[in-house]
């Protein structure tokens, strides 16, 4: 059974500032390699390193292998950061399109042009996505309504809708033409 992350060795690094310094200097090289591999912007890398180090200090008494733990924690922070950033792009596109399709203004040529462009982008997504994306961005259906309309379970339609939005985002960012079919949505 695991013991709680007890404080019996508390301050083993912090109390002798030396320990923390040498750990950080060993970590620095590895962290830079990881942030290079994940292409983390400099200002974000600083935050992510800081987060990993704080978590390490909080848990240090239960960690047998600080170097391995710390670099593992930093790698996970980087991956989560990239996922969050990707999610933000989806959300920006999703919100913009929902607002446009629900805009009560009777005639707005710019909005109409945007919706026409989206329609062509939707046409270029995999067939299964088209009906979901049209229900969402033409009729403004919520996830539950899409599930009901298309006969999916709400839990599964959430995943499918997210993949479809990813497919649309690829079109919007021109990634689908760049990747030339390497990045097909998986269903």
């Amino acid at each position: 059974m695991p013991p709680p992350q007890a404080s019996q060795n508390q301050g083993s690094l912090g109390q002798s500032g030396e320990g923390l310094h040498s750990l950080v200097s060993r970590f620095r090289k590895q962290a830079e390699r990881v942030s290079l591999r994940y292409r983390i912007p400099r200002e974000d890398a600083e935050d992510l390193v800081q987060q990993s180090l704080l978590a390490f200090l909080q848990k240090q008494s239960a960690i047998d292998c600080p170097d391995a733990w710390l670099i593992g924690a930093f790698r996970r922070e980087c991956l989560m950061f990239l996922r969050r950033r990707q999610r933000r792009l989806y959300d920006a596109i999703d919100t913009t399109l929902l607002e446009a399709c629900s805009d009560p203004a009777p005639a707005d040529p710019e909005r109409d042009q945007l919706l026409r462009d989206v329609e062509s982008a939707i046409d270029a997504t995999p067939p299964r996505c088209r009906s979901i994306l049209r229900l969402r961005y033409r009729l403004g259906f919520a996830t539950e309504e899409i599930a009901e309309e298309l006969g999916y379970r709400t839990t599964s339609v959430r995943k499918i809708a997210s993949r479809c939005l990813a497919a649309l985002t690829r079109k919007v960012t021109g990634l689908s033409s760049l990747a030339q079919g390497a990045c097909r949505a998986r269903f």
Partner: protein
Amino acid sequence: MHVSDERMRAFVSDRLEPTQRREILSHLLGGCSDCQKAARRYWAAPGSADDAAAASEAASHFEPGLDDSAWNRILARATDHQHRLDAERAAATQQWVELERHPQPRRLLIARNQRRYQTWGLGEELLRLSWENRFDDPARMLEQAEIALAVAESLDDAIYGSATWDLRARALAHVGNAQRVSSDFRAAEKTFRAARKALDQGTGDPLELATILNFEATLRVRQRRFDDALKLAEREIALCRRWGQLHRLGEAYHSRGVVHALRGDDGQAIRDFERCLDYLDPERDPRIVLTSRHNLISLLHEEGRLAEALGRLRETRPMYHQLGDRLNLLRLRQLEGEIALAQGETKLAEECLLEARNGMIAADLAWDSAEISLRLAEMYLSQGRNRETREVAEQIMPIFQSRDLHTEAIAALLLFREAVFSETLTAHMVRQTISFLRQLRTRPPA
């Protein structure tokens, strides 16, 4: 007109007006390759097909490395944080003394509302205390884990980062484990699910996951779902090995050893207990080391490897006495009695077993006292000491009846007693009763 980097950042951060957002999206849909390229920087996750396609262009925008001043800032903040944690840990013992004076609902109220108690150090200390109570006081174990959870739920993310969710996950795991100890399996199941969810919100630390897996494996053992328990223990072993957590690896082998022993695979259980002792750190948790050694000696004895059992017992005896735990000393006496019995030293065996049995009765440990009583009965039977066998049979029933334990156990003991009084008891029947009681003991309550 292109979208500037600043504007693109504002777009993805939801800091623009709807009309401005529409302009950008229209521009991207219009196919401007420069701006699409700028948007793609927010897109690709490493390892994906998208990433392979976008890798080279993203690399050209990347500014490598943090400079010395960034590292100095990081180190300065880390040092401050270390001082904060040291102070919190130093205050935690006293804070618990203050909280302890109140009834549990008030302790929870204080933990949730008083800032001064909302510290990582206190949460951690409460979990340590809760864990220490696992053998002696399950109710207190649960109470302390619940307060730790209240503390963890109130921690400030701005101070402790996303690891606050990790502490929440750990506290939930301890609450679930305490519920399991109190035989509330349904609640434990639900709490472990919540613990995993909390960990997903946090840093995803594999060591926290290993804790949850360990507790879940113990729950599966109590539910007699041994295959599931084995899978969980193996996942835990893999995680601890991968992250170089040697003491935790020892604990994981211990868990797997317990599962193998309960499945009746003594050979594999012995190997796991031997392996776990290679990794466990006695400084960190002497009690688990003693439990592992005790289990190993018992199994060696049961497998008939008496010389090895005796050797290990000699090495371990000082540890039983050092820990000064009454229950462990009683278990030592039981083990000594059983080994003496196997060696034919019946006088010593009787002395040890009687002492262990009486101690177990005094400590209210019905199952243990029943098992030892049956061992004594087996010994008396083989010596033709019918009067003593009857005495054992008479003493055993009230213990079970008064505790309202398993009706099947009571039925088995009634059969045993009848056989004693009708003088039809055989050694085989006694051994079967012991084995039946062992099975019942690990069976979940109805």
